[in-house]
């Protein structure tokens, strides 16, 4: 059984199609990163999963339960950190966590949860007086109460400083090691890259790519970037020869420095080709295609 299955979901708001026939599956125990530019529909998709919105067509199942038909059963097994939320009235941080524990029938001590998310010193202050980062930590604490089987996080690192963001990342990793599935959306590609097993890229309401990051790299036609500095400017013919090699997707040159995007297996052939005229390699750098470039390529 999958943790989350979105099938054929379409959602339109006043003439704008936010989601178009979306199909997506998150497996049990995997971390799935949901990427996309602003306005792609990521939050809309998450809001449909949480039954904040009703889809025009299609369905969402969480551990086999229809999310529109039985949202409460879904939320009993799912920890949620939505976006665009605000805290509850006049309650303190501690009261928020206690309310979450009580609602989910959990057994955690609110003090422990607050300690875990770093809010112990301000536990008895009104949550409405918290800073943005504190509120996000509180909401995250409420989401992990009750040992959920799936975490749905919408832009979880919003408002958090790098330490806070790292805390989220580390907690997500250890939860995944415990068997919890995680479905989260983010703009911050480093965070996604560090923790996601698979990544989905949403653009204009449609899923344009779903794969592991390595898989996306390969499919995008480049696993590596080579930066080779020669002792002399290479001739156009030489560059063309490199372009023609199997597994090479892009070749540019700035003076004596040649930048090549290619698959990993082609790296050696590229270097050989560049030295074919007797040129000497002065410097050599390789790096994997970053998620940033992949993102730009797909969107």
């Amino acid at each position: 059984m999958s943790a989350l299955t979105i099938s054929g979901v379409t959602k339109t708001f006043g003439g704008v199609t936010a989601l178009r026939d979306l199909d997506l599956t998150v497996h049990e125990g995997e971390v799935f990163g949901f990427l996309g530019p602003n306005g792609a529909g990521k939050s809309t998709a998450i809001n449909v999963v949480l039954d904040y919105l009703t889809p025009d067509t299609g369905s969402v199942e969480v551990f086999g339960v229809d999310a529109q038909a039985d949202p409460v059963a879904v939320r009993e097994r799912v920890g949620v950190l939505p976006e665009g939320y605000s805290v509850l009235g006049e309650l303190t941080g501690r009261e928020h966590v206690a309310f979450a524990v009580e609602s989910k029938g959990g057994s955690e001590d609110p003090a422990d949860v607050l300690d875990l998310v770093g809010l112990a010193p301000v536990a008895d202050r009104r949550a409405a007086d918290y800073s943005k980062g504190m509120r996000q930590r509180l909401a995250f604490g409420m989401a992990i109460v009750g040992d959920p089987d799936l975490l749905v996080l919408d832009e979880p690192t919003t408002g958090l400083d790098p330490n806070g963001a790292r805390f989220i990342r580390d907690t997500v990793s250890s939860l995944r090691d415990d068997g919890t599935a995680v479905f989260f959306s983010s703009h911050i590609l480093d965070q996604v890259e560090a923790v996601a097993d698979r990544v989905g890229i949403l653009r204009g309401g449609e899923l344009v790519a779903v794969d592991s990051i390595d898989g996306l790299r390969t499919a995008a036609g480049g696993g590596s970037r080579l930066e080779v500095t020669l002792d002399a400017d290479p001739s156009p013919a030489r560059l063309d020869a490199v372009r023609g090699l199997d597994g090479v997707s892009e070749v540019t040159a700035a003076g004596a420095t040649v930048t090549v995007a290619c698959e990993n297996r082609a790296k050696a052939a590229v270097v050989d080709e560049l030295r074919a005229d007797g040129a000497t390699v002065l410097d050599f750098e390789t790096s994997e295609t970053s998620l940033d470039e992949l993102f730009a390529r797909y969107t």
Partner: protein
Amino acid sequence: MSWTVVARKDFRDALRSRAFWGVSALFLLLVVSLSVAYAQVDELSGGDPSALGLVFFIATAIGVFVSIAAILTCYKSVAGERESGSMKLLLALPHTRRDVVLGKVAGRTGVLAVPIVAALLVGAGLGTALLGEVAPLATVLFGLVGLLFALTYAALVVGISATTGSTGRAAALAIGFFLVFELLWDTVVIALVFVANGFVFPSGPGALPEWTYPLVQLPPSNAFVTSLSAVIPDAPGAAAGPGPGAGQVETFFGTPWLGLVVLLFWVVVPLALGYRRFARADL
């Protein structure tokens, strides 16, 4: 039961509202002043002050207080949470939208109950002190009907709040309801009589048609006072339901029990309608 968790949270939350405590303090002051006035001023008690008379004398004050306090504490109950986004945090937990609405009605009724019970005790205490007599049964029954009335208004305003995601509109609807059904209702009834009578005002005794009697019972605060006469034995004649020639109407519509039916109507109908809109809304 999930709605009890929401109710408790809502109760705790609403209890912290300063606006509410301000209104409650004023109300307590009002009850004290009215009790003293009733006991001392012959014109108010008709020369024969009694504990029962006191109870009914402050009934109208309770009616006004509850309606205003309910509007104040309840108009943002659902609409405000939708507008601010805290509804998302609330529904991130395993509660149905029905739990949320019912829990809020329960929680806010509880908050309204606090000043009502306090005022009742104070009033009863003062009544005993000033008049030298006690009416314990009447006081308790009065309290129960008062709580029913609080429930009615809480359900009514929460129902109104549930129809919209804008606190501005919720406030307008709640105030509009109060204006039409409480302040201006007599005018509305007269206008209806005017129209039904061929655009001519009826004149003479017994001129108002029978159907105006039940119609006048419609405002919740009128129904509250009518219910009191139904429930409390030996209700003073002066306190019998307002309206033209009530004694002449023989049917059920003439009985004070209509008041309880009307209260029940106001508890159920707006809440049901409001909940249905809320259940289908996109957040």
